[in-house]
């Protein structure tokens, strides 16, 4: 009996020890931990890096969505074990910029010498008021529209990307094309309006939810016009009402349930993996409404990182203009380093999955001439509240004429104390 009990007790202790030990990767200078989110293919970068440095061991963890990764990082900074290197999505960054002491000031590693490589407005987002650099930008969003050439043809629309781009210089023209498509086929034109219209249009303005003076101002005319524009799409009933990244959205994309998806540069990879059966049937056209950016990410090093040197070496090497160019060539994420925008490798880059569209050119065009706006600490939750109200309108749960006031009230509840 006694032995039995002892064995059981030993098991409990052993289990706890296993748990404890596995949590510790030690401070081996050749190893560092890297948290990323899914869908951005950092794995490819890590493979390139470890091929060049076979002695370095990068422990890459894809934590989850961008939001989940930011939440996990917050939890870690608040008391857990922190990674050595972490990828933070642009809209999540401002929250961390409020508490910059949690991160290494990358100037101490020489970031001040390389910051000129990156787009000013992107670099500004990760620089504190007193000049500390928290993150190095890995990519920018860049906006475009992905469309199905076969479905356009069936609807009697042009299929050539330049002709298609000429169809919709403005969002209103885009809506007219949508109505034509629905009229011709009886099928939805766009996957959804909240993500594919609102989140694009609101990122094309000169101001989003904060004034340039960094004051909260989410009810401004630019936001309202993007919001009203989305309501017009909903009223016209041209969408499949499939929330982006939902199971129904994926299935619908694979089945050709809708013909058009708004595609920031990082979306192309998502379309490729979610609808592998549609290879060659897509093309990419310019986005209506002019230049804009949605997304883009930063690499940062938490202050408590065990191996900041290895992490910095990785940033320094993999985020150089040339390395970003290489990353673009394999993954499609647009470099944040303007010096490569004119590089022939970028401008001549075409993508077979998307009918050989010159994606390098399309996306760099969409960010040149962009007027940056200030992104504030609550941009993430504010965006979610606006999106949610539009989804509710789409689901018929909020009347369109009440949508704007509902949205303002919801945002107020969420971010004003």
């Amino acid at each position, binding site marked *: *009996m*006694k032995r039995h*009990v002892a064995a*059981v*007790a030993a*098991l*409990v202790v052993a*289990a*706890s020890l*296993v*748990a*404890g030990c*596995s*949590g510790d990767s030690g401070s081996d200078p050749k190893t560092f931990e890297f*948290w990323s989110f*899914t*869908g951005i293919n950092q794995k490819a970068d890590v493979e390139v890096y470890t091929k060049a440095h076979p002695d370095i061991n990068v422990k890459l*963890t*894809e*934590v*989850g*969505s961008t939001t*989940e990764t930011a939440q*996990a990082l917050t*939890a*870690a900074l*608040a*008391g*857990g*074990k922190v990674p050595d290197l972490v990828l933070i999505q642009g809209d999540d960054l401002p929250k961390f910029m409020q508490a910059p002491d949690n991160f290494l000031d990358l100037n101490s590693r020489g970031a001040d010498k390389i910051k000129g490589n990156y787009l000013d407005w992107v670099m500004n987002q990760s620089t504190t008021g007193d000049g500390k650099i928290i993150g190095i930008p890995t990519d920018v969003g860049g906006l475009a529209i992905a469309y199905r050439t076969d479905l356009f043809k069936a609807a009697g629309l042009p299929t050539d990307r330049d002709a298609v781009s000429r169809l919709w210089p403005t969002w209103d023209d885009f809506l007219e094309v949508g109505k034509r498509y629905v009229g011709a086929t009886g099928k939805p034109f766009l996957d959804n309006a909240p993500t594919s219209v609102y989140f694009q249009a609101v990122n094309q303005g000169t101001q989003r939810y904060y004034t340039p003076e960094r004051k909260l101002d989410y009810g401004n005319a630019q936001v309202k016009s993007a919001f009203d524009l989305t309501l017009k799409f909903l009223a016209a009933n041209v969408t499949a009402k499939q929330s982006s*990244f*939902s*199971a129904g*959205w*994926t*299935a619908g994309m*694979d*089945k050709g349930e809708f013909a058009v998806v708004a595609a920031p540069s990082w979306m192309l990879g*998502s379309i490729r*993996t*979610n609808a592998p059966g549609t290879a060659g049937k897509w093309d990419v056209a310019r986005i209506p409404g002019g230049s804009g950016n949605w997304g883009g990410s930063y690499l940062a090093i938490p202050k408590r990182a065990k191996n900041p040197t290895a992490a910095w070496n990785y940033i320094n090497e993999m985020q150089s203009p040339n390395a970003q160019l290489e990353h673009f060539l394999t993954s499609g994420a647009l470099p944040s380093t303007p010096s490569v925008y004119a590089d022939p490798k970028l401008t001549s880059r075409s993508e077979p999955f998307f009918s050989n569209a010159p994606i390098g050119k399309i996306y760099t065009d969409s960010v040149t001439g962009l007027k940056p706006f200030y992104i504030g600490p609550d941009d993430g939750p504010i965006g979610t509240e606006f999106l949610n109200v539009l989804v509710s309108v789409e689901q018929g749960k909020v009347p369109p004429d009440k949508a704007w006031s509902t949205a303002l009230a919801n945002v107020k509840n969420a971010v004003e104390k």
Partner: protein
Amino acid sequence: MTRRRSGHRVPLWVYAVLTVFCAISYFPLYWMFVVATTDSATATRLPPRLVPGDNFLDLAGLVLETVPFVRALVNSFVIATAIGVGQALVCSLAGFAFAKLSFPGRHTLFVIVVLTMTVPLQLAIIPQYMIISRLGWVDTLQGVIVPGFVNAFGIFWMRQHIVATISDELMQAARVDGATTWQVFWRVVFPLVRPGAILLGLFGFVWAWNDFLWPFIVLKSPERYTAQIAIKALQNSRDIDLGLAMSGSFLATLPLLVLFVFVGRRLVGGIMEGAFKG
């Protein structure tokens, strides 16, 4: 409907109703299996196909590619075993003290135990998280295991069990032999109530295997996920296949179904035994 001797002959409709009820109990599990074996093109077709397909290995492979699912199953097993064993030990000890020992404050302390059963400690989850992070236990398995030992109902249950199983005469007899309390517990009481303790441990195991909120908050990196958290990760994965989360759910449920085949009868007995006689 009215039968002369319904106490003896069971009407057929009773079987019919019970069969339907059991079918409803099984159906979601069966459906999990069907979708977990079907490719997404078939799974998104209407009318739905009601028989399993042959895509199980493909989907399972995709699950393993997306999250470290084998690791998650191992983690679940370690956590659930440790919690099951820990609860059985902690509750047997305390149950014994409350059942068979007299000490000042016994009544008050037992009332406290009972009161804690009525307060869902989930509402204190924020400070709980602060404590775990103070201990440096965020993202560790012991951060899930150790708080899981707390089970007031288990103490109540073990106390009842010990009262019912161990007579005061037996206690006295053991005492007369000069045994210390500890010896009485280990040599006399525990062997006799071991079946009850094991049953309690089994319930602890099932509970811990299926628990979601606390592991979801404590465990952050995929190598530390439990099977339940892995399901959530599958549901959230950007490269969504409709069958992916279903396949993960099935894989996470399968171990318990196997366990249930062996111990289901005892679990049923345990629930009925723990019931309060009217």
